[in-house]
C-alpha cells in the first residue's frame, strides 16, 4: 500500500477506544466553533436513527479557534469519532488521509450590503470596495472573475480575516459590499441585529453553485462511509433533512 502523507503521532495520543469497536453505536464529532453546530447535532441524531444505532455526540469544543488543525482532526477521526460533521466538500482540497460522505446539505456564499440601490452585481460600480472572508470559496470565485477584468474595470477587493471582522467592516462602511458564507452571516446576526438588516445582492458568480457540506472520516473506513451514505440518501429522499433544516435557523437546502 502506498504511503500517505499522514501526521506522525505517538501511540499514547490514541488512548481512547476505537470509534468502530462498538457496532451498536456511532460516535459523531460536532464542532462548536461552526455556525451550523445546532443543525449538525439534529442531523447527527437523524443519522443514528436511520442506522438503527445509538448516538454518541463528541463535542470537539476546542479553545483554539484558529488554523486548520489537521493534527487534532486526525486524532479525532482515528480515536474519538466515526465521522466528523460539517466539512465543505471541495474536491482535492484536503489531505489524502481524509475521505468524505455524500453531502448532507448545501449552502451558499452571498454578496451582502447595507447600501441602498444595490440589487444586482452589476449595480456595483467598478472600483467599489468588496470585502471578502479571505481565501474562502466565495472569495476565490470573486477573485477569478475580478482578475479576469481589465485593470480599470476591477473592483477593489478587501480581504478580511474572520467573519465577525468582515461584518464589522461592512457595518462601519469600510466596504461597500461583502462576500460571506451565508450561515456565518445569519449566525452572527443573532447577536448583532443591525447585521440582519443587510441585504443580499444578486450575484450568481459568488453564490452558484451552492457548496455541498458533508462529513469527514478516515480514508480507510470505506464500509462505514458506504453505510452513512445510504443513510444520508434515505434521509434526503424521505424529507427528513429538509424538515430538520427548516426547523433550524441555518440558511441551507438539502443537497441535490
Amino acid at each position: 500500500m502506498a504511503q500517505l502523507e499522514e501526521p506522525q503521532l505517538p501511540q499514547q495520543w490514541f488512548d481512547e477506544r476505537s470509534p468502530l469497536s462498538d457496532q451498536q453505536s456511532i460516535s459523531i464529532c460536532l464542532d462548536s466553533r461552526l455556525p451550523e453546530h445546532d443543525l449538525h447535532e439534529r442531523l447527527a441524531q437523524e443519522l443514528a436513527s436511520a442506522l438503527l444505532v445509538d448516538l454518541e455526540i463528541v463535542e470537539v469544543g476546542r479553545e483554539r479557534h484558529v488554523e486548520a488543525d489537521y493534527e487534532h482532526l486526525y486524532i479525532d477521526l482515528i480515536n474519538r469519532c466515526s465521522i466528523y460533521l460539517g466539512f465543505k466538500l471541495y474536491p482535492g482540497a484536503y489531505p489524502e488521509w481524509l475521505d468524505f460522505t455524500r453531502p448532507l446539505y448545501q449552502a451558499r456564499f452571498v454578496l451582502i450590503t447595507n447600501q441602498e440601490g444595490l440589487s444586482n452585481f452589476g449595480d456595483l460600480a467598478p472600483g467599489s470596495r468588496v470585502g471578502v472572508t479571505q481565501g474562502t470559496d466565495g472569495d476565490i470565485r470573486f477573485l477569478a472573475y475580478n482578475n479576469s477584468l481589465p485593470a480599470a474595470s476591477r473592483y477593489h477587493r478587501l480581504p478580511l480575516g474572520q467573519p465577525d471582522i468582515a461584518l464589522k467592516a461592512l457595518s462601519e462602511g469600510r466596504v461597500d459590499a461583502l462576500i460571506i458564507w451565508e450561515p456565518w452571516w445569519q449566525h452572527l446576526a443573532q447577536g448583532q441585529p443591525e447585521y440582519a438588516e443587510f441585504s443580499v445582492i444578486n450575484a450568481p458568480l459568488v453564490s452558484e453553485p451552492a457548496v455541498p457540506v458533508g462529513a469527514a472520516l478516515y480514508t480507510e473506513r470505506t464500509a462505514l462511509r458506504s453505510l452513512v451514505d445510504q443513510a444520508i440518501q434515505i434521509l434526503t429522499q424521505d424529507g427528513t433533512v429538509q424538515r430538520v433544516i427548516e426547523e433550524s435557523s441555518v440558511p441551507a437546502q438539502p443537497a441535490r
Partner: protein
Amino acid sequence: MKDHQRWFRPYSYLLALLVLISGVGFAQNSSGFNPVTDEILLEPADDDWVMWRRTYNAWGYSPLDQINKENVGDLELAWAWSMVDGRQETTPLVYDGVMYLHNQGDTVQALNAATGDLIWEYTRDLPGELATTSSSIVRSMALGYDKLFFVSGDMFLVALDPTSGQVIYETSMGPWEEGFRVTGGPLVINGVVVTGVSGCGGAQPGGCYITGHDADSGEELWRVNTIAEEGTPEGDTWNALPYESRFGSSAWNIGSYDPELDLVYWSTGQPYPWIAEMSGLSPLQEGENNDALYTDTTLAMRPDTGEIVWYHQWLPNDTWDLDYAYEQVLVDLEIDGETVPAIVAVGKLGIVEAIDRRNGDWLWAVETVYQNVVESIDPVTGEKTINMDSFPHIGETTVNCPADPGARTWAATAYSPLTNALYLPMQEFCSDTTPNPLGEGEVYTGGGRATFARRPIPGSDGNMGRVDAINLGDQSEMWSHRMRPANGGSAALTTGGGLVFTGNLGRYFMAFDDTTGEKLWETRLSNLPNGYPISYAVDGEQYIAVPVGHGSGPSTAFAVLTPEIRNPAGGSALYVFKLGN
C-alpha cells in the same frame, strides 16, 4: 586560543563594562550552580553548549577536537535516554556537566551529561488540547544567569531554577488560543530575553512579534511587530491592504547577536495566506508596492529596546512558503581586500547569501540545489528576478521547486572556522501547487491542505537528500554528498576535530570530513535525527549528542517520494556517543 574565539577577543573591554552594568550576580550560588554570566554567554567554555547554536554567532560549532577525523570511526554509544513521545526538534543544552533537555509537551529534564542519570524533571500542566499537539515543542531553551528559560506551549516565558527545575517566574507572551506559539526559543543578551513568536495564523493584525523580557523579573520590556506599522515607509509595502488585513511574518527560529555592534539579528517568514492572490498582495495595484515588509526579512535590532536599526528583505511578496526565518550566521568575510562583518543566511530556496551586518547591504549569493523560483539575482543589489511561471494563480497548477517544506528547513546549517565553510543539510524536490479554498479565519493552514503535491526535481536520479559544503571565501562548492533519503529535519554540527555531523530521513546519523566530504562514520538510530546535534565535554571526555524523533513537516513530506523509507511514528530519544576505550 582557538580560531572560533578570535572575533570575540577584541571585545573584552566591553565584557568588563557589561559585567559592571548588568547588575547580575556572578558568584556561585548556594546550590553550587555557577551563574551563566554575560561573559560566559559571550564566550562559552569549550566544554559547554549554553544556547541554540552554542554561540551568539550561530555557527553551530564546537571547538572540541578529541573526536576527530582519525578516530571518529571508534564512536560508541555512551548512554541513551527515552524522551517524551511526539514531535521533536530540540537542542540539548549542556553547562558544567549537566544536560538540559526539552521534551514534547513541555517536560524539561536535567541529566548528568556524562552518565545520563536524571537530576530533576519539570512537566508543565498544559491545557488538555495542547498536551496532545505538536505546538508544544521548542527548538531550544537558553541558559542565562541563574535561570533556564523556555517558552511553553501555552505561551509563557518560563524561568526555571537550573538546579531544581522549580519555576522562578512565568510571564504570558500572548494568547495561545489565537494560534500564537514559539517554535524557536529565547536568546539571552545583556539581561534581556529576546524571543520570536510564530503561528500568527489567526488573522491577527500586526502579524507575529519579537519580544524582549527582563531576564531578572520577566517583565516585558519591548515588543516589535513583524509586520511594518502603518504610516511608515515600510508600512506602505502591502499593496494598499489595510493593517487589519496583513497577516504572517512568523519569527520561527532564533536570532544571532553581534556584541561589538550591539545588534541582534532575527529573521521572519512569509505573508499569509501563502497564495498572493488570496492575501491581496497580487495583482499589484497601480502606484503601490507589494514587497510586504517585514516578511522574509532579517531585522537588526537593539536588544535592550527592540529598535529596528536596519532591515534586509530576502524575498518580497513570497507566495511559495519560502521562509527565510532561519539562523543568521555571523562571519567576517574577506571581500576585495576588506574584512566585512557579514551575515550568511539561507532560505528554503537553498541560496546562500551574505549581507553586511553593519547596514544590511547585500554582498553576494551562491545557488545550491535546483530551484525554479528565482530567475536571476542582481550582482550589485541582490534583487531577485522572479520566474513568473512559478507564481501560483487561482484556478491553475504551477510547478514550484523546491516544494514548500524547502530545500533547507528549520534544521540549521553549521559553519566551521577551520575551513571557512558553511555546511548545509538539504533536500531536492518540487511540488505541483494548486490554490484551494480555505475555511474562515484559516489564513495559515500549515500546509495541511492538499495544495502541494510533491514531485522529484526534473531529471532526478532518485537522490533526495544532500549535504553541501560552501567555501565562504570564494563561494565555491567544496563538496556535495548526495543520498537517497532526504535530510528531513536534521541540523548540522561542526567540530574542532574537522568533522561535520548531520543525519537523514533514513535514520542515519553521519560524520563527514569537513574538507573532503568523505563519510567517515555513520550509525542507524531508532528514529530520525530530527533535532540539533551538539558536542560537549565532561571531565575531559568529549561527547556527541543527537535527539531523534518524528513528526515534523519535512519528515512526513517524503512519504510519497521515498515510500520505501518507513520510520516509527513514535519513539523520541536522545543518543550520546563518545570514543570507545
